[in-house]
């Protein structure tokens, strides 16, 4: 290696360290959530996600206390084969195990001259024995959290285990229909789609029309009206919700999809028109002139010329509006609530009612991020453009 390269490396080092640190801070929290959502329930409660590649719980305690007689795999004493599930089932609590360790075995103290382990390490040993005997396997990764989150199962064991044992709660049928259980993420996912798709499509349609008028049609007060529109973009949701929920209550629209679609359309309008108008306004003037000379009406010019050319803007707008509605909590909270839970509502609800039910929360949060992440990584260019233009919306 030549001297210059080494010098250049050290000159860049502080800069690269700062970049690395920031990237880590931005990646680790999400990464930790992903890992946690894939770990079994007991493991999440007893150790942090960064220990996932460590040796399984209890194996260290087992080696310390038991391996010298029973062997590393537990099979050394044939009469007391620790991989035999029937034997382990008799000692599958730390108290039971401790009692056995303290009692005598064939006239000798069970542990010989060794010290009896503490109750905490006994508990860890039980976990290990359950694992090697197959009484309760401790896989490193599992999808059971996702299943529990999809059906909204809130037991102390997993949905699959309780269904197999027949101890699941009565509102669950333990078949595929549970995916639509109102407490689950499956149902919320469907509801979110039902809310989001029309609430994306409708504003684009209306905004394309209005944006075209602002860009290429002449009328009195065009600039003034457009400036007012720019101001309206910033109006916070909080300023308009109360009167609308009162009107909705009278019309019976609270808790309906129609109510939310219309609200999102109304609120998405100023930004959507702003973006459409600015994009359509950059199209060359000659294009519209010659279309006119060829005898095209403004309507033909709109749907044969403006719309096809505006597709990039429509893509940005569509992605922005889609993610805005998908990620929205406040509107869903006020106008839909528990009757039609969407993903954000369902998660917020889980947070307040579950406290630290991390196995459910992490899986549910990841389910809600799936679609946005997909959109983000596949259509990043349009997404960034739409996001930058619409940053101050509602």
């Amino acid at each position, binding site marked *: 290696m030549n001297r210059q390269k080494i010098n250049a490396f050290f000159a860049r080092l502080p800069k690269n360290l*700062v*970049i690395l640190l*920031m990237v880590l801070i*931005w*990646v*680790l929290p*999400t990464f*930790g*959530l992903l890992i946690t959502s894939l770990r079994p329930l007991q493991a*999440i409660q*007893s*150790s*942090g996600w960064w220990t996932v590649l460590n040796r399984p719980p209890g194996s260290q305690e087992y080696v310390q206390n038991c391996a010298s007689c029973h062997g590393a795999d537990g099979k050394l004493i044939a009469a007391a084969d620790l991989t035999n599930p029937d034997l382990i089932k008799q000692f599958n609590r730390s108290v039971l195990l401790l009692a056995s360790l303290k009692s005598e075995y064939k006239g000798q103290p069970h542990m010989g001259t060794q010290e009896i382990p503490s109750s905490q390490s006994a508990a860890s040993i039980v976990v290990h024995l359950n694992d090697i005997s197959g009484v309760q396997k401790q896989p490193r990764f599992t999808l059971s959290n996702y299943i529990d989150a999809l059906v909204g199962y809130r037991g102390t064991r997993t949905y699959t285990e309780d269904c197999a044992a027949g101890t699941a709660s009565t509102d669950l049928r333990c078949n595929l229909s549970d995916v639509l259980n109102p407490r689950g993420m499956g149902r919320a996912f469907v509801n979110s789609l039902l809310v989001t798709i029309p609430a994306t499509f409708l504003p684009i349609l209306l*905004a394309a*029309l*209005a944006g075209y*008028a602002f860009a*290429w*049609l*002449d009328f009195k007060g065009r600039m003034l009206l457009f400036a007012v*529109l720019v101001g309206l973009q*910033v*109006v*916070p*949701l*909080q*300023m*308009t919700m*109360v*009167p609308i929920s*009162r009107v909705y209550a009278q019309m019976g629209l609270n808790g309906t999809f129609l109510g939310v679609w*219309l609200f999102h359309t109304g*609120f998405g309008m100023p930004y959507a*028109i702003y973006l459409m108008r600015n994009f359509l306004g950059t199209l060359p003037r000659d294009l*519209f002139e010659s279309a*006119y000379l060829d005898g095209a009406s*403004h309507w033909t010019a*709109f749907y044969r010329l403006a719309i096809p050319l505006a597709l990039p803007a429509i893509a940005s707008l569509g992605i922005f509006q889609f993610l805005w509605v998908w*990620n929205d*909590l*406040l509107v869903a909270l*006020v106008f839909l609530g528990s009757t039609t839970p969407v993903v*954000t509502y369902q*998660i*917020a609800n889980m*947070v307040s009612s579950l406290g*630290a039910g*991390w196995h459910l929360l*992490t899986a549910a*949060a990841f389910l809600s*991020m799936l679609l*946005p992440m997909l*959109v*983000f990584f596949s259509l990043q260019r349009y*997404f*960034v453009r739409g*996001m*930058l233009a619409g*940053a*101050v919306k509602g």
Partner: protein
Amino acid sequence: MAARPVPRIMQQGKLAPLYYLAPALIIMLFFIVYPMFNTIQLSFLNRNGTASVATTCVEGRPCWGVFENYRYALTAEFNTGSTKAFWDSFWLSSYGNTIKWIIFMVAGTVILGLLFAKLVDGIKNEALAKSILFMPMAISFVGAGVIWKFVYSYGTQQVQVGLLNAMITALGGKPISFLTAPVLNTYALIVVGIWIWTGFCMTILSSSLKSVPDEIIEAARVDGANEWNVFWKITLPIIMPTVIVVITTMVINVLKQFDIVYVMTGGNYNTDVIANRMYTEMYLNFNTGRGTAVAVVLVLAIIPFIYLNIRRFIAQEEMR
């Protein structure tokens, strides 16, 4: 505008613009304009919006007549016993917290965004590094809230499953309950806000950094300016207009910030902000008058920035 010739396609029929505009205008009138005025009206009425709030005044208690809801919105959180008590309660109120949010979140996102934009400018994996920072913008505030609630997780027993508390205990410290310890918890929430919005600021600032002409910077270097001086005396003044746009945009966003607080603490433990308080008054305490009064206060705080936004728009129009 008058100087530019209008294309003839713009002059077809007097009614044509109306067809295009009517649906959008009607829906905006109903969902934005009408509710705004109605909200102002409701803020002077009682909890059901049936009579003036002045009728709820009780003899011997402080009351501002028709402005009673505003008295509640503006003063209810404060302890007016003494100047010191007032000051202390102010900084734990939704107003004090909102000010903390504005100062620290705007400073945090803009400074970190600018720093990152400058550092990754021209490196090999620039696009990747930037998209990592931008990623939180795609996920919901609710999702980000869960992600960080887990980072902040506080174990009452030996085991710490939260990353931060695990690091603290590994270094021999005592675990901290980040979300329930007042003063600290608001800053813990602000960190989440910074984590979400830095990518946004970084992207805008990065494109403006790239638009600074290379010749100017080269000329300064030739004249013997070091990197530090080039940045402070040349680059920064050139991108200053963009920095100001980013700051005003962020202030508006911070003022409207509701989800993070709602999901992570629900506004408890002295973490309330104005945007969340409106929700509490309206949909948990069911008091229309107070809820709308808080909303009006929120909008009054935003109005200066609406003005800046329109002014920026006019400036853009003149450059077209």
